């Protein structure tokens, strides 16, 4: 029998709480982190709502040493480093407790700092200098280059490279083992944790800091996703806009933040007396190979990912007590996901509670799967089911128990967490009581 892998710590930065205590409280209360965008003036945008991290309650500098590293970090890298620090503290994994070469990092990353506002402004200045006054005329690239070179800090490029969040986590934690970045967008956080599991199972590390981070609440992110028709436009009632599985759902709400878990080989965890939250028992991944945004209508890609995950964990469908859904609140995803769950779980589908925490925190993109796994861990350990809030009108085609509106007490032994992203990339994780 293969050795088990434990989750020994978790840390999060979310729109409804920094750290697992506050996040857990928010989940139990069904709190919404969705508000009118404050990060930039959004008048005139078709979508003017998002789930932002409350900067006032987040002391970035306290997680970074030395302080000058902050200059090199995009917003999402800061979230990742903070979450990793909190996870490690929770795991009581001190500096000398693990051989540096035996601790790895695997993080999901998204758009990164290339679209941070100050960088966009610099580019805008350079474009203006290029004298392109009207569409269709050639722009003066040498003039652009002169202006860009004159005003752009050379270090700004370092905020935009997706692999550097994981590099910062490694530097802050002296983690010299394998270091990987997963960029499968909405699936990245789940996939990164799954790949981290494999690192340990393959013997390449004893400990892995695994998770995801994203911060796309900026003009390009909001416009980009909005123009694809994926975002809710319920601007008049932000806290009610994210409504997965509801008949009147109209798209997702962008969120930001990060989640990191500490994964440990069983023998290593036992030897040092680590606190154990759960077993990370299974991981399954597939790709629809169908369309860039549309999922296979027969849900076969998603269903296969769930199957693979359950097989990997050697868990039967009747052992799963909770499903943390991808549940973005788009008309298509929620329907396809419901079909996939019914296909895999059959009769059990009616029994198993399925909820979407995106109803509260929005869609954290590359961080979503990681934060949602932490939500699942808190549910498993805390004996409750996070709700799907804003569930007002049932959709006849989505007829499962979505834990509507209020958290419920529930003891269960195993939970499935799913992510089904753009590009048809699907991944699922299974956690089990230790």
């Amino acid at each position, binding site marked *: 029998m293969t050795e088990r892998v434990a989750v020994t710590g978790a840390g999060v930065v979310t729109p409804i709480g920094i750290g697992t205590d506050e996040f857990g409280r928010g989940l139990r209360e069904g709190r919404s982190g969705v508000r009118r965008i404050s990060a930039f003036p959004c008048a005139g945008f078709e979508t003017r709502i998002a789930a932002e991290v409350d900067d006032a309650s987040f002391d970035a500098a306290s997680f970074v040493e*030395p302080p000058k590293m902050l*200059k090199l970090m995009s917003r999402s890298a800061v979230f990742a480093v903070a979450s990793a620090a909190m996870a490690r503290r929770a795991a009581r994994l001190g500096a000398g407790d693990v051989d540096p070469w035996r601790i790895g990092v695997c993080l999901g990353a998204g758009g990164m700092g290339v679209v941070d506002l100050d960088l966009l402004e610099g580019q805008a200045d350079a474009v203006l200098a290029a004298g392109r006054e009207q569409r269709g005329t050639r722009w003066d690239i040498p003039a652009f280059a002169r202006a860009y070179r004159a005003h752009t800090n*050379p270090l700004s490029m*370092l905020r935009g490279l997706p692999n550097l969040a994981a590099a910062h986590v490694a530097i802050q934690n002296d983690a010299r083992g394998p270091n990987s970045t997963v960029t499968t967008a909405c699936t990245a956080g789940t996939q990164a944790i799954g790949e981290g599991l494999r690192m340990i199972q393959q013997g390449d590390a004893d400990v892995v800091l695994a998770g995801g981070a994203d911060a796309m609440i900026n003009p390009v992110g909001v416009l980009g996703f909005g123009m694809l028709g994926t975002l809710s436009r319920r601007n008049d009632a932000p806290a009610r806009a994210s409504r997965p599985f509801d008949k009147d759902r109209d798209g997702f709400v962008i969120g930001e933040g990060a989640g990191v878990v500490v994964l440990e080989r069983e023998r290593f965890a036992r030897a040092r007396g680590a606190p154990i939250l759960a077993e990370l028992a299974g991981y399954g991944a597939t790709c629809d190979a169908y369309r860039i945004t549309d999922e296979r209508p027969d849900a076969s890609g998603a269903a296969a990912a769930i199957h693979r995950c359950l097989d990997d964990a050697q868990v039967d469908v009747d052992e799963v007590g909770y499903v943390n859904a991808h549940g973005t609140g788009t008309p298509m995803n929620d329907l396809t996901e419901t079909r996939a769950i019914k296909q895999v779980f059959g009769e059990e589908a009616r029994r198993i509670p399925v909820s979407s925490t995106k109803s509260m925190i929005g869609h954290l993109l590359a961080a979503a799967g990681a934060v949602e796994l932490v939500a699942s861990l808190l549910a498993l350990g805390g004996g409750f089911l996070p709700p799907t809030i804003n569930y007002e009108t049932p959709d006849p085609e989505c007829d499962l128990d979505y834990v509507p509106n209020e958290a419920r007490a529930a003891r269960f032994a195993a939970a499935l967490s799913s992510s089904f992203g753009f590009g048809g990339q699907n991944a699922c994780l299974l956690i089990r009581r230790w």
Partner: protein
Amino acid sequence: MSADPTLVAGGNLGEVVRQIVADVLMVPVARVQPITELVMELGAESIDFLDVVFRLEQALGKKIPLSRWGDFVKERLAGQDLASGITTDIVREFAEHEAAVP
């Protein structure tokens, strides 16, 4: 790019350099003394000097190719260990050198 007028007025290049070093290394300016060793005492690394040269460009209103900093340091600290040799004073001398050339 145009020069910082308070600088052109003359005389306080030393203070400008201290502030630049403090901003780049994110330390209080009081910790940046003329003989402070930027690498050994304040943890400066290679990319920090990129940032310093960029901010000197902004202050002096002129382009400063990075190679000029490299050449200056090599010549000025010939035979010395670079890690302990690069002090705030060295940066100030470089800034004065660059301010003087057209």
